[in-house]
């Protein structure tokens, strides 16, 4: 059953001290689909995404990636570090703050995992890294350092870095939120072309337009729970859920009026 699913979450709970941030999340991420996570600030979107990469350790529940338990098995035994690393290898992560390594060139950033983790010979790693930079339209910036790149370019390098490891699923946490408005387009375009190629993607975003046009699966998170989920078209066509409606209405001011009838 779960091998047809990219990621499954069952009863996932996450607390920070006495603050319960995720209150029992059940969610299926299907292969080849773009899933968008939307919701008000503080609803737990980032936390949920970070749990899927085991950057945060969930306090209860079970997460499976490509069928294998992530971090803890069903009996809540912590899995060995090598097993965590192996399961995590299915996942690529793109951060809001890019998080490129400033002392490496664009090419160096993308090639790092190929060299250090996959142990490819230098030339082969650089060729593959170059191919990924080309894919995000940055072949001519290969020898630039992050400080010499615009935000949009940095984020595209970060996407290339994630893709270079050949993940089955790529997670994006508000990939355009720290970009100037005129730079969001180039990043969204790369993501759209990835989606067209059938990449499985989970995207936390405030770009309602992107969610409406690219996502197949939409998840509305509210106060640490999945308040509503479904096919993106259906959810947007009929935002009957009062909290979702309220949430979307805040976007009317920002020019996303096309979405609401």
């Amino acid at each position: 059953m779960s091998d047809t699913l990219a990621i499954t979450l069952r009863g996932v709970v996450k607390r920070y001290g006495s603050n319960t941030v995720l209150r029992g999340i059940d969610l299926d991420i299907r292969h080849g689909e773009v899933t968008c996570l939307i919701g008000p600030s503080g609803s737990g979107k980032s936390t949920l995404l970070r749990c899927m990469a085991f950057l945060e350790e969930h306090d209860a529940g079970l997460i499976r990636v490509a069928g294998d338990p992530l971090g803890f098995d069903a009996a809540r035994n912590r899995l060995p570090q090598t097993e965590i690393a192996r399961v995590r290898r299915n996942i690529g992560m793109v951060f809001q703050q890019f998080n490129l390594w400033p002392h490496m060139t664009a090419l160096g950033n993308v090639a790092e995992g190929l060299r250090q983790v996959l142990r490819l010979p230098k030339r082969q790693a650089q060729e593959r890294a170059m191919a990924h930079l080309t894919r995000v339209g940055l072949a001519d910036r290969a020898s630039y350092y992050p400080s010499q790149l615009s935000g949009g370019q940095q984020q595209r390098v970060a996407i290339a870095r994630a893709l270079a490891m050949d993940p089955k699923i790529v997670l994006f946490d508000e990939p355009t939120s720290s970009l100037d408005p005129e730079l969001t387009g180039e990043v969204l375009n790369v993501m759209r072309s990835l989606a067209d190629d059938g990449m499985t993607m989970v995207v936390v975003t405030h770009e309602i337009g992107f969610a409406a046009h690219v996502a197949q699966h939409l998840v509305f998170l509210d106060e640490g729970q999945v308040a509503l989920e479904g096919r993106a078209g259906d959810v947007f066509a009929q935002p009957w859920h009062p909290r979702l409606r309220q949430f979307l209405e805040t976007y009317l001011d920002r020019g996303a009026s096309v979405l609401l009838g």
Partner: protein
Amino acid sequence: MSDFSALREAMPEIVDGLWLTLAMWLAASALGLVLGLAIALARRFGPVWVDRPLWAVVGVIRGTPFLVQIFLLYYGGPFIGLELDPTPAGLGGLALYGAAYFSEILRGGLLAIPPGHVEAGMCIGLSRLQIVRRIMLPEMTLLVLPASVNMFVVLLKETAVLSIITVPELTMAVTGFGSANFAFSQAALVLAIVYWTLTELTGGLGRLLERRLDRFKLA
């Protein structure tokens, strides 16, 4: 000036003193840096029972004058069976002093690395050791460069304190000449000029290096 013959006579000693100052400075800096890095890493990644005692030792060294430390080491050492000649005692003391400060500088550098840079490494599949070696240490180096150059300068100036336990370094040699020839203020002036020249050179070198490394700066 009749002092010239006296100066010529004292010159070899003064030159030796200069060399010893440079040698003590560079050796103590290198030792202090290596030991400081070890302390910083142990405190950052080690268990509490490693962190606590190191915190205490570093605090004591940073909270007392170097002059007092060197007295303790040189004159107090024999009471615990640690009998050292002036030069090794001076080198050890200066290296420990440097290590305490360097450990704080480097620890601050490690803590200033954006956590996301480490997380990006984890997501790529780098091991803990690879993350430290490939990401944290290089980024730390960039972050601590200005403070480290400053510490090198401090260590150079503190070598003068070693004259108090009769290490025949520059200050010892020049003040010796000065008191033998009743030329204290001239001797002090010469010392000031030499130390200031050396610290300016160090600072200039540091700024040059910083400019060279500018493109690695975080955006």
